[in-house]
């Protein structure tokens, strides 16, 4: 079973929920955590895994053989990312724009284009206690996160309960992380920002036809608009984490909730059971 933890808005507590869910569930079932927030991977700060191997993520980018190239310009015409430019007597390759689709090498009538690997980041794997841990790390300065997310997702171990920590946002890296998951847990906070971004994220899970439920972080009595939205859209609120300076201080130090109070371990185990129940009732 693959459970994604996503939010739309950043900083709502995705990593808190994903890591505590992993730690609490690991007492009962074999668990794997995939950190797909490859721009800013943070789960390792709470699980403190030992990383035992790392693989570079590459995409194929064109290399033009000047002996064969006739500068016909077809490669530049077919490139959807404008990563090739033909100037008199030469083809310029802007490798950082290339998404590695291979259109240029297919199109070249002279077979002058070969492909070479270009590093975008790395996938790092290891263990944190009994938890199998995998994270992606996009190189600083790289814009194209998708292949790194895809490489992390490929490491999913279907013998385990897989928990996916998803990047904030609603665009392509988020969709890539959500593809093929069985259930999506949406983490939000009871503010207009939290509600607005939950609404956007709910549209994404509906588009992907994923069963989903909600965790409200920094919950308090003052704002019930998130609950009302969940009620209207038949989204169950499975857990509320209260607004509490002590919770925030523990987070600041990198201490998981389940280690601060045994009641949280019980709560997160219950959260896992609730997810299983809902996922079985509403298969995606």
């Amino acid at each position, binding site marked *: 079973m693959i459970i994604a933890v996503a939010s739309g808005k950043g900083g709502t507590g995705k990593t808190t929920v994903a890591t505590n869910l992993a730690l609490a569930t690991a007492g009962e079932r074999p668990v794997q955590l995939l950190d797909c927030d490859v721009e*800013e991977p943070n789960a390792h700060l*709470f699980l403190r895994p030992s990383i035992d191997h790392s693989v570079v993520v590459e995409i194929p980018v064109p290399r033009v053989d000047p002996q064969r190239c006739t500068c016909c310009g077809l490669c530049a015409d077919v490139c959807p990312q404008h990563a090739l430019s033909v100037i008199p007597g030469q083809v310029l390759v802007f490798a950082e724009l290339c998404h590695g*689709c291979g259109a240029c090498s297919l199109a070249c009538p002279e077979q002058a284009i070969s492909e070479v690997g270009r590093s975008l980041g790395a996938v790092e794997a290891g263990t944190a206690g009994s938890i199998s841990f995998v994270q992606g790390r996009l190189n600083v*300065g790289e*814009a194209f996160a998708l292949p790194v997310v895809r490489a992390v997702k490929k490491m999913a171990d279907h013998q385990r309960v897989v928990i996916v920590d998803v990047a904030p946002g609603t665009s392509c890296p988020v969709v890539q992380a959500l593809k093929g998951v069985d259930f999506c847990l949406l983490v939000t906070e009871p503010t207009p*920002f939290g509600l607005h971004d939950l609404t956007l994220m709910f549209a994404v899970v509906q588009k992907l036809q994923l069963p989903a439920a909600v965790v409200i972080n920094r919950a308090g009595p003052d704002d019930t608009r998130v609950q009302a939205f969940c009620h209207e859209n038949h989204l169950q609120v499975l857990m509320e984490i209260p607004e509490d300076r002590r919770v925030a201080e523990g*987070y600041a130090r990198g201490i998981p909730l389940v280690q601060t109070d045994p009641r949280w371990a019980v709560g997160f185990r219950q959260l896992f059971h609730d997810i299983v129940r809902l996922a079985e009732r509403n298969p995606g």
Partner: protein
Amino acid sequence: MKEVAVISGKGGVGKTSLVASLASLAAAGHRLVLADCDVDAPDLHLLLHPELREVHEFRASHKAFVDPESCLQCGRCAAYCRFDAIHAGQVDPLSCEGCGVCQWVCPVGAITLREELSGRWFISSTRYGPMVHAQMEPGEENSGRLVTLIRQGARKVAEREEAGLVLTDGPPGIGCPVIATLSGVDLALVVTEPTVSGVHDLKRVLDLCQHFRVPAVACINRYDLHSEGTDVIKNECHSRGLTIIGYLPYDPTATAAIRQGRPVVEFPDSHLAVAVKEMWGRLEAFILALSSPDF
């Protein structure tokens, strides 16, 4: 005209709240244009309540379509697609990059590319000045290009209105939309918080600023939450020669202000509003030092 982008690496550290307050303070002495470049999850409008003036469509993505009448089910498209987006004549629009390789290899010309609506962008007015913002369609791609459109739009409006400052609310992360937000701005204000995640993400986003040679200043939100964490941030900034222009306290007024849909400086007696005002004084000095005659 000067462009200042507020970014953070980590999400949820207070970028949007800060931009709304800085807009309120800046508008008292300058003409400014606001830009919300967090196109995935834009929230600035929830504090500034813009009135829409112009709506523009954003069409940057293409998707493959297979004509079932002429498809031979030969499987060449699936064999050549690098994004695992086409199987047995069926296109998965969420995986399709619109690269056109399938169209190129199809022996019977059964595949065409169609332009899709990826989002919309808007020019609006707020009480602090014009605002350029956008909304992606859920799950769409090319957020970097939409950010670039917003920035071009904001600069154009600023020229027309003779505004000296474009103040931008940036997205979290360090990838495509952040790079599009950051490249070529005059100053980045990097917001962080003294949590283990905040510190980790700060280093990556400062590396990004250095990579693109964007001058940066920092501000620590909720600095009193974890004093050791604040010390780590101070050392990190010091070792990079970066000025910390603001220390903002943990203050429940921050959340109360968001709930009321108002910038926190409208609660002038709060500790937070006082600290933000002080910080604006320093930021204003930094922008003036960038020597722009129109600011």
